């Protein structure tokens, strides 16, 4: 590959990183904490390409300078793939497909079997799906029983019925795994998969519907409303 092409590729690649970091699309792929890294890396890549371009233009004006030998790097063309993927395809955040093909299950939270802090007061308590599932599965005090909570996630239709799910990531989407809640009540059954909804309702005590696919508590839906996909679709 020619040196000029390499430099253009570097500008594009750095630009792609900067673009997703600035627009917030990066949250589909990595944790929020990665943002400064992405901005810095994008800037460095653009700079390395730009400096080389400027140097080449200057060198071209002075015909006396000797040009270094560069071995052809065909592999560099592969850098086009993520650039095209980011600018043209812009892959969406992981959704129902990842939940149905997921490995493993929800891990026991830190110090499982111990008691959780009491839920905050209020008629409806908003909880992260992760917190809801770990309380439903491992809280010996049963702090969820009888309380109305609101949960936000996307819908998945599986053999266990309609699920409300959320992907949890540790670093990037490659290591994502789902947390799931089985929805009781027909309100969600007609909606297409991957619809984002906010539901309120109560846990069905002591129900584990899928022993093999990890812990999945059941939830009686009282109200359901569609919401737009949140800017940060994952939990951590």
């Amino acid at each position: 590959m020619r040196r000029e092409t390499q430099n253009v590729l570097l500008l594009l690649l750095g630009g792609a990183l900067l673009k997703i970091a600035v627009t917030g699309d990066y949250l589909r792929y990595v944790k929020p904490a990665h943002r400064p890294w992405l901005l810095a890396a994008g800037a460095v890549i653009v700079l390395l390409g730009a400096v080389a371009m400027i140097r080449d233009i200057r060198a071209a004006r002075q015909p006396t300078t000797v040009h270094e030998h560069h071995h052809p790097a065909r592999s560099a063309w592969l850098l086009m793939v993520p650039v095209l993927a980011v600018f043209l395809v812009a892959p969406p955040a992981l959704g129902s497909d990842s939940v149905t093909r997921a490995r493993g299950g929800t891990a026991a939270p830190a110090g499982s079997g111990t008691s959780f802090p009491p839920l905050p007061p209020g008629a409806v308590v908003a909880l992260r799906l992760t917190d809801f599932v770990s309380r439903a599965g491992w809280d010996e005090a049963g702090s969820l029983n009888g309380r109305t909570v609101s949960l936000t996630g996307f819908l998945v239709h599986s053999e266990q019925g309609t699920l409300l799910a959320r992907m949890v990531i540790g670093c990037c989407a490659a290591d994502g795994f789902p947390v799931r809640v089985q929805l009781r009540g027909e309100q969600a059954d007609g909606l297409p998969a991957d619809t984002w909804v906010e539901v309120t309702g109560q846990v069905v005590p002591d129900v584990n519907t899928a022993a093999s696919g990890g812990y999945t508590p059941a939830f009686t839906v009282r109200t359901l409303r569609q919401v737009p996909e949140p800017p940060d679709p994952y939990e951590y």
Partner: protein
Amino acid sequence: MLLVLAILGQSLLQSAFDVPALRTGATVFVAVCVQALPFLVLGVLLSGAIAAFVPARVLRRVLPRSESAAVGVAGLSGVVLAGCECASVPVARRLIGQGVAPAAALTFLLAAPAVNPVVIVSTAVAFPGEPGMVLARFVASLATAMVMGWLWIRWGKLEWIAEQALRRLPEVEGRDRWRVFTETARADLVDAGGFLVLGALVSAALGVLVPGEWFGALADQIVLGILVMAVLAVVLSLCSEADAFVAASLSALPLLPRLVFLVVGPAVDAKLFALQAGTFGRSFALRFAPATFVVAICCAVVAGLLFLGGAR
């Protein structure tokens, strides 16, 4: 005209990516690239800095003269570089280029992503109440790196490493240093970047294709579990700072196979193999990666038996 083509292409591509599996694969691919690129950039900047500002004689003075001792120092110095595995490949290559013994550079290559503080802390967070796991991972990863270094001293051959990785850059002074710094970093980035992308493509494809049942049915078969987890570590190519969380989530499995997963992953995986093949040459990678794979499994099993109290 170009714009029209781009818009047409975009809608075509997006309809092609409407297949759920392909969409998931594309997301995982971009995620691996986006997550790894900053570390690769860090690595090529370090590599450029070594080439421009650290003369070969300084490195020779810092490292012990005996190769075996240098391997030990290199393994422990891996604790300092807090980065993913992608950062250490260009750095190791530059160290070899600057005259460091290949055995020591390769030990550093394996140790840096596996024993740095970030990885240790994230393992401790992912396995609360299991301090043995953290210790076992640290010891097994360090042992893997050092054993590979000593094996290289005994059997390694310099001609396996591609000529371009061995080329030493001339020493420079003053303003020229900045030129060497940026040019080295740029060339390393272009060289290694393509292979990083290749590794990400392979791992995204395999990650979607590997059936999920592989994980569930292995709880009782410890030997099969170890082997499958080792293969999965290679296939999934997770960042070494995040793999502990994935291992923790596979709660159906005993601890030992999960430890193997954590020790093998940072030492050898699909994207690392691609990076090594691109940087050091194919005949190097084809020998080094399988050897690392076996050594890592052995070290992990021994460390697991010592620190986890058997296969639980």
